[in-house]
């Protein structure tokens, strides 16, 4: 049975980004029905029952998050839309925002109606210029057609959506970092508790949701929970803390593949299928060596490593919220699959990872600020052929001790900074040791210029 995309259904249609096109496909009917016929709590309950888990990376149940808001709060309550999509190789939100902005906006309207929010802040990363312009045009269209503003369609529901451009920092994707940045401050994540649902933007209760999550809300409200639950992976009965992974998911495929792209598939597709079938296989006729299941902060899998007591390798793990965790990765993350081919030096991969996190660490907590910088210095040296065997142990030690899991930092950036380092070294240790022993340099002056824009 072939899978019909829903979230991406309208992509590439003419006028997909315009209100008229969206209306033509039955858009905003769900919102209007909900506004007329449903109570906010019914919307919350439906989203909660659908089992929708946040698509931003952590996979926190969306409806449950909404219920954390204080009951009968006099307001204002804010919704922040997290479109600071900065995880390397992740671009699923971008496609939604550029090609189908009204789907996102309908999700925002439904969410705001559900949580009784009258002001939504759409935090979009600076680099997404096209998405910003498309969204702004879509918001203007909604205002012009009475879908946003005061007393929407005579129901007494008010909603304003403000589009806010970030200034280009990965840490703004952390929900409290986003809130601080939105408030005009340095994006230093806040200490929790209080969580944003209690005290968030401008010290008021705030819900922060990802763009794709809100698109899922639109589809859930339109097609119902049965449709949503017909896809994906039910909860693992052996794991009481597993909430299951239902629904469609946008996977982005990048790296050394023939056809890098964003595809929509039901949750739980295997990594092998995703790369080999949807990504067109590894490029240049090579084989995959390591694959990253969901943005580099989730760690890497060794394609050839056998999973204990089975014929499968780590390549065969399902990409649902639990799959990557079973092979030592942090989680599904943003479901951005990056493929590393067998001709690539793992030291270069490691260096790339360290460079990114050293650059993006906000510098607030000591373990992360100094740890990411130190790891970069070590890998820099390793690339120059001056690595030492003990460097690998230092890297693992440093990577292991930072993060909210051991409790040494405020936010999860450092867990994400440490995870790829330790998974790479643990899974490819022999290659690292061999490279250190040989003293091979992998620093090249610069790559040839491919083109300008």
């Amino acid at each position, binding site marked *: 049975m072939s899978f019909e995309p829903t979230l991406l259904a309208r992509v590439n249609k003419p006028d997909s980004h315009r209100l008229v096109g969206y209306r033509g496909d039955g858009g905003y009917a769900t919102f209007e029905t909900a506004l007329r016929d449903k109570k906010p709590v019914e919307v919350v309950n439906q989203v909660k029952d659908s089992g929708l888990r946040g698509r931003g990376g952590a996979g926190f149940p969306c409806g449950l998050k909404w219920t954390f808001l204080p009951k009968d709060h006099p307001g204002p309550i804010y919704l922040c839309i997290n479109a600071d999509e900065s995880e390397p190789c992740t671009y699923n939100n971008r496609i939604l925002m550029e090609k189908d902005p009204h789907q996102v906006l309908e999700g925002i309207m439904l969410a705001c109606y559900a949580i009784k929010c009258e002001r939504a802040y759409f935090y979009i990363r600076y680099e997404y210029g096209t998405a910003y312009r498309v969204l702004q045009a879509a918001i203007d269209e909604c205002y012009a057609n009475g879908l946003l503003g005061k007393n929407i369609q005579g129901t007494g529901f008010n909603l304003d959506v403000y589009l806010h451009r970030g200034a280009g920092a990965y840490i703004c994707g952390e929900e409290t970092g986003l809130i601080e940045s939105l408030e005009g401050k340095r994006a230093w994540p806040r200490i929790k508790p209080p969580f944003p649902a209690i005290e968030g933007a401008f010290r008021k209760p705030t819900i922060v949701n990802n763009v794709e999550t809100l698109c899922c809300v639109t589809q859930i409200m339109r097609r119902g929970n049965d449709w949503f639950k017909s896809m994906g992976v039910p909860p693992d009965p052996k794991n009481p803390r597993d909430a299951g992974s239902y629904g469609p998911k946008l996977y982005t495929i990048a790296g050394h593949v023939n056809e890098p792209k964003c595809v929509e598939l039901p949750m739980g597709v295997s990594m092998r299928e995703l790369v080999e079938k949807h990504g067109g296989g590894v490029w240049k006729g090579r084989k995959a060596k390591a694959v990253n299941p969901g943005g580099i902060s989730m760690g890497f899998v060794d394609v050839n490593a056998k999973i204990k007591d089975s014929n499968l390798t780590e390549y065969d793990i399902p990409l649902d919220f639990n799959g990557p965790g079973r092979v030592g990765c942090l989680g599904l993350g943003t479901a951005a699959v990056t493929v590393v081919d067998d001709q690539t030096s793992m030291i270069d991969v490691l260096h790339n990872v360290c460079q990114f996190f050293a650059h993006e660490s906000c510098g607030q907590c000591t373990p992360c600020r100094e740890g990411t910088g130190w790891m970069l210095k070590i890998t820099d040296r390793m690339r120059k052929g001056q690595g030492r065997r003990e460097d690998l142990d230092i890297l693992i030690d440093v990577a292991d001790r930072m993060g909210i899991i*051991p*409790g040494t930092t405020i936010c999860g950036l450092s867990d994400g900074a440490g995870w790829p380092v330790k998974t790479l070294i643990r899974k490819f240790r022999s290659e690292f040791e061999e490279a250190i022993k040989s003293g091979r340099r992998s620093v090249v002056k610069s790559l040839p210029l491919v083109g300008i824009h």
Partner: protein
Amino acid sequence: MATVYINDKPVDIGTERLNCVQAAERADVHVPHYCYHPSLTVVASCRMCLIEMGDLKDGKVTMIPKVFPGCQTPVKDGTVIVTGDYAKRDTSVPPLAYDPKYVPADRAKKAQADTLEGILLNHPLDCPVCDKAGECKLQDYSFEYGRGETRLVDEKNQPPNKPELSSKITLFTDRCIMCTRCVRFTREVSGQAELQVSSRGHHSEIDIFPGEPLENKLAGNVVDLCPVGALGSKDFLYKQRVWYLKSTDSVCNRCSTGCSIHVDANKDVVFRLRPRENPQAQGYFMCDEGRHGYHHADSTERIARPLVRRGDKLVAIPYLDAAQEFRNDFETHLRLHPGAVWAILSPFLTVEEAYLAARWLKGKSQQVKLALGHVPMVGEDDTYPKDRRGRPIQPVKFTIRAEKCPNRLGVEAVLRHFEGSVVPLAKAIESAKRGEAKAVLLTGGYPDPGTLNVFAEKPNDLMLAVTDIFHGAATALAKYVFPATTFSEKEGVYVNYAGLAQALHRSCKPPLEGRSEGQFFMDLAQRNGLFNAATIRKELAAEIRYFAKLADGIPELGVKLF
């Protein structure tokens, strides 16, 4: 009633809302920290105060398998805290029922050592040339909690220093550990937010905004707040190794707030003043006027010897001769026309000194007139925080008072007792102008030269005796000039604007032949022995009801008189 267990030791914290650092303090357990400061918001970023935490329920302890920042984590009834110092716990207390597999303090100790390794990675370790060495929290904690060696073989980051940060403060950027106390201070207490963090990750630096140096009147506090040697006071820079300094508790004399201070001196030279935490006086901080206002103490311009007029010249003669000559002269006036004798008591005198002077004179004759000396007033009370435009905002966290003297209330209480009311200085001047005053003892002790410039036109037959720190219009006309002493050379009590009596302690000798005013008045009154503030205090506490509370000595943080 809430009981918290710190390294097994139960502490009752009542209904107070405390964090783990504060709760541990109650059990005499110090949790090391850098970024946490009780007067600033909590950011929990230095990660030095990491502790292990759990819950005691039904006699069973459940520990959470991670570490927590102690400064940010609140405690409640039954909270169990295990700090990195668990091995140094009070072993007389029976241990709690931990899980047998749990090793107390294992995690916390490692986490603290790891944090220190991180902080020291890019720290230049230039302790031999660093002013903070000896009182540096980075040294102390590294010694106590850190590892002995570094594993870094790569180059350290070497950001350039920033001497242009402020006219009074310099930044050794590479020593900074990014605790951001200074940044929070300028945002929350002084308010004008001159400092900020620039750049990101391990390239983060403390910086100012271009062209806007850190020049507010509370700026000096960032140097005290800095737990390492990153922010240095240019006033103190490279002057003295801190281990040579002897720290004495004292009171700032620059305004009537009367900040509690530490006077750091070596060999009779004051090198710096630091605020001493006192919630009853000023809190944690002090202003730069006070902080840098001690230089008069070691000025070479000071009056250092008693001077007596011979013809039209003031000639230095030995103290005892001068005192005797003055006493004879003054007491003659007292005998002949006591009603025409004035003594002006300066608000820079301590309570004891004012008392001794008044006691001596009133003992000679009830008709002697006592008046309050010049009370310097500059502008209006200056409150902090201020906003970016310099307008004060509420709630007020620090006040620099317009009244630039430390002890008006104390001297007034003495005057009220002896004179019945506080006679203003203007009356004495008028009386002298009319030729009614025959002899005036004018006490000063003003730290700024030129403050004591009354009696500009002295009637010819007026016998004027002056005690002051610097020469000025008054000493030029005086027949007798005695050196006055300043706060670091006195023992005694100052009463601040709110009636808080605080003790000054002597840290330096007065210059050359100077004697403290207390000793001077004792010598004049021919009281035997050396001046002892505590003895005099007992005497005056018994005599003047206002000071009754001083009879039993003065606690470290002072005592409220009303």
